[in-house]
């Protein structure tokens, strides 16, 4: 069974709501405490990027459970905004890069917390970032 939930992101309360929902979903899937923290932290980083950088600070986070072909369970979070897009994905994935008032570790740090991360973006047409983590 795939469980899916969506959280509209429009402010800091929604950052908390999204990361709590991701944590609860991960807990329900049987992820341990460290993975729960990794997943909640990654969702916090990505949804904060929306509040900070997206047009009017608005976007969306979809959290869903995954079932792999080998029977493994996992969690996927798709974070979408229709903001300005990222001009140079390679650049933002570099350690220490920051375009604004961030710490420059948001995206590379998030990548390290997850098993998979995919970024779809183009200037002027928003950004969709998909992250996944699988049960060991």
């Amino acid at each position, binding site marked *: 069974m795939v469980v899916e939930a969506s959280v509209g992101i429009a402010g*800091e*309360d929604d*950052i*908390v709501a999204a*990361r*709590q929902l991701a*944590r609860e979903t991960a807990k329900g899937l049987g992820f341990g*405490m*460290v993975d*729960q*923290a*990794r997943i*909640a*932290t990654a969702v*916090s*980083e990505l949804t*904060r990027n929306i509040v900070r950088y997206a047009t009017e600070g608005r976007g969306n986070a979809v959290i869903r459970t995954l079932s792999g072909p080998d029977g493994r369970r996992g969690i996927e979070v798709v974070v979408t905004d229709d903001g300005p897009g990222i001009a140079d994905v390679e650049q933002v994935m570099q*350690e220490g890069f920051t375009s604004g008032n*961030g*710490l420059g*570790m*948001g995206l*590379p*740090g*998030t990548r*390290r*917390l997850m098993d998979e991360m995919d970024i779809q973006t183009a200037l002027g047409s928003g950004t969709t970032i998909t992250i996944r983590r699988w049960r060991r």
Partner: protein
Amino acid sequence: MARFPVIRLGRLLIATVLEELRDSDAVDLREELSEALEKTGALGVLLDLSAVEMVDSFLGRLLGDVALCAQLLGAHTVVVGLRPAVAITLVELGLQLKGVHTALNPEKGSALLRSLIARDGHAKRPNGR
């Protein structure tokens, strides 16, 4: 309800974060602690994060800011009670809590604060508070 009650114990301020902090709550924490330091002349801040389930880059930076503000106000900061899951996540995220001392629990944290204050070796505050 207070999200992070601050109590004074001798020369120390003890702040306990009781619930998940929004970004603005974290900023409030920094300001309230700074004001409490100014008001009380405390020489150390013990910040208990044992109820915190997640520290992301924003909150991590705020903790560094709290320690820097406290330092400018003549006080040391020790963060205690970081959960193992939070510690591992911080390392993977690449966050260094610069200028922030840490200790396992409040008991060890207050001992560390007392030794840091003792090492300063002199009363910083002329009124001796």
